[in-house]
């Protein structure tokens, strides 16, 4: 850290106990059996969004049990409201000079948050070759090897694949609009019945990106590195569309829901007619939990919806990297991915390439039942849109706040 020497006296006084930190290089040099041995008895602090009881139960219950029984690892799930909180915790520790004895061992992450960690050199990299289950991942698929345009580069383990889907209540709405143009028309024809969370919330942010794609006539022009001239051309059109919608939005667009779950509450209580999420599986679990009405159905747009992959990352200052690796490998395994894909557990799409599994396991995946509220992944995948690079996402979020949110 810059100018750190000047504070040497303070640093000496305040230096935390070195603990039993594991420098990255040391773990990287070990065989898998040695890593498992070292991991035994450690506690992994896994920071993840904690608002779904199903996901919580899957991680604390199912994965926690596997980690304990097979590897003698204690899995501690730390529920947070927003992934940025975990990233922030790591950055703050590094800023304060805690380079080896951090408190975060594993983060459920993607997109801007991952990019922030990488840019700050705050993520542990280069271990994927060592993970036995890494062979199940199809790294030739750019939707996996790039996380919002940021190369994964061996710094994260894939966990789930998701694709954006809209949801409506079949009991209230016979036939939803199935293209972005039709949706925008529907909103103006039905004032007060639609809204979206305020970016930078990630659900609101991805909705605004769909409008951006629509304004740009498709994602092609926006792919690749951020280009100011393209942004300057497309952005005003997108803001114009969104500002024109405003009077037709819930509360006349004077305020926006805080996040995707707040939108879900408005949807469940018939304040609005549409919900949407990055993960269509949440509609199934939501119906089962009573969070959404029984008639909830989800679908993609004919012009496509954005899909991406989410991952597990290990902060560079985690002192328990071996155990974090074992847990990441466990979560990536076919068994755990299959359990997670079951609709009454979570219904999350696997991040592994199912085609690489033995036939029996492939059949198990193929035979998974689907909740009626969940749009079939295969159907969504027919019109999948790529995710923009994180720089674009940041620029669009800031632009929205400036030109739409504060107006």
């Amino acid at each position, binding site marked *: 850290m810059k100018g750190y020497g000047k504070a040497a006296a303070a640093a000496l006084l305040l230096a935390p106990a070195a603990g039993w930190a594991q420098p990255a290089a040391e773990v990287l040099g070990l065989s898998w059996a040695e890593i498992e041995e070292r991991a035994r008895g450690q506690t992994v602090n896994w920071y993840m969004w904690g*608002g779904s009881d199903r996901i919580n139960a899957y991680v604390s219950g199912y994965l926690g049990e596997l980690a304990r029984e097979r590897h003698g690892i204690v899995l501690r799930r730390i529920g947070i409201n927003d992934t940025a909180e975990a990233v922030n915790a790591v950055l703050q520790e590094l800023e304060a000079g805690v380079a080896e004895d951090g408190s975060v061992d594993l983060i459920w992450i993607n997109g801007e948050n991952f990019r922030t960690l990488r840019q700050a050199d705050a993520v542990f990299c280069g271990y994927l070759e060592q993970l036995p289950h890494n062979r199940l991942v199809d790294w030739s698929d750019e939707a996996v090897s790039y996380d919002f345009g940021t190369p994964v580069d061996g710094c994260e383990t894939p966990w789930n694949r998701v694709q954006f889907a809209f949801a409506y209540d079949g009991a209230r709405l016979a036939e939803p609009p199935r293209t972005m143009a039709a949706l925008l028309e529907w909103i103006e024809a039905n004032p007060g019945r639609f809204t979206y969370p305020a970016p930078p919330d990630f659900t609101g942010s991805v909705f605004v990106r769909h409008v951006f794609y629509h304004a740009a006539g498709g994602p092609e022009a926006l792919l690749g590195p951020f280009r100011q001239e393209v942004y300057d051309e497309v952005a005003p059109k997108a803001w114009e569309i969104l500002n024109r919608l405003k009077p037709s939005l819930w509360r006349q667009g004077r305020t926006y829901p805080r996040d995707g779950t707040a939108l879900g509450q408005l949807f469940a209580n018939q304040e609005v007619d549409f919900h949407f999420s990055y993960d269509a599986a949440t509609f199934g679990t939501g119906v089962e939990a009573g969070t959404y009405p029984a008639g909830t159905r989800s679908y993609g747009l004919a012009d496509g919806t954005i899909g991406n992959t989410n991952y597990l990352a290990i902060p560079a200052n985690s002192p328990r990297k071996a155990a974090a690796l074992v847990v990441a490998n466990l979560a990536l395994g076919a068994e755990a991915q299959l359990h997670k894909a079951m609709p009454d557990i979570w219904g999350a799409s696997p991040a592994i390439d199912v085609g690489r599994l033995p036939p029996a396991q492939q059949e198990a995946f193929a035979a998974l039942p689907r909740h009626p509220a969940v749009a079939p992944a295969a159907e969504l995948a027919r019109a999948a849109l790529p995710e923009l690079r994180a720089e674009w996402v940041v620029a669009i979020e800031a632009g929205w706040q400036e030109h739409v949110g504060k107006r």
Partner: protein
Amino acid sequence: MSGGGLRPGQRLWLALLLAWLLLPLLPLLVWSFAKGWHYPQLLPATWSLDAWRYVLAPESQVLQSFGSSILCSASVAVLATLAGVPAGRALGMFEFRGKRLFELLVIAPTIVPGLAVALGLHVIFIRLGLANSLPGVIIVHLIPTLPYMALVMAGVFANYDASYEEQARSLGAGTWAVWRHVVLPAVYPGIIVGALFAFIVSWSQYVMTLLIGGGKVVSVPLLLFNFASAGRNDIAGAISILYIVPGVLIILLSARHLRGVGAMRTYSNP
């Protein structure tokens, strides 16, 4: 007290007021036994014990965080008592140079928002390894609780008759014996009430725990916020009901001691 009984208008006023004070708890209680209780249902169409089952199941970690919250708030109450009783004695019984300044130091934390102080402390707590740990959270909870304990005890000691101490001392009792046999028996109702309410002040903290605990110290309010903002109203309802139980018990327990301590006990838990 003036007059016996209330006029009808006053009776109505009081009834409305109490209904208003209890009303927000009602939907929480109903939600904890409901499933999918959405507009326009006046009462839930489906009743369910799912939320309670989840809350009481070990993998939800709700009971675990209940335990760590109790441990945290109890420790805070003990520490606040240890530091607050002597400070209250000094404030209530003695004049000394710099007393006004000390009073200011004690009163200021009840005025200055805790968030402002906690933000400043965060970096140093990370350096000291206190961030993201229960001890760190216990220490910051002293900021809102200790002043309150000191002020309560200042009130108690101001009305305390010191002549017994003189007598005990003249009979040859040492400092410890005086505290043990004279001071503490005289002021212990104040200590009990003060400590119970220090417990409640700590029990209610949200943002300091979030910031200094870094999500790792999972107190009940953190879980509650998590589920409330995630739309799991049934689970939020069940956690809310559990969450208010200690406070209700404390009001019941401290009812006996109320008279001697007066209104000071509610200070700093607005």
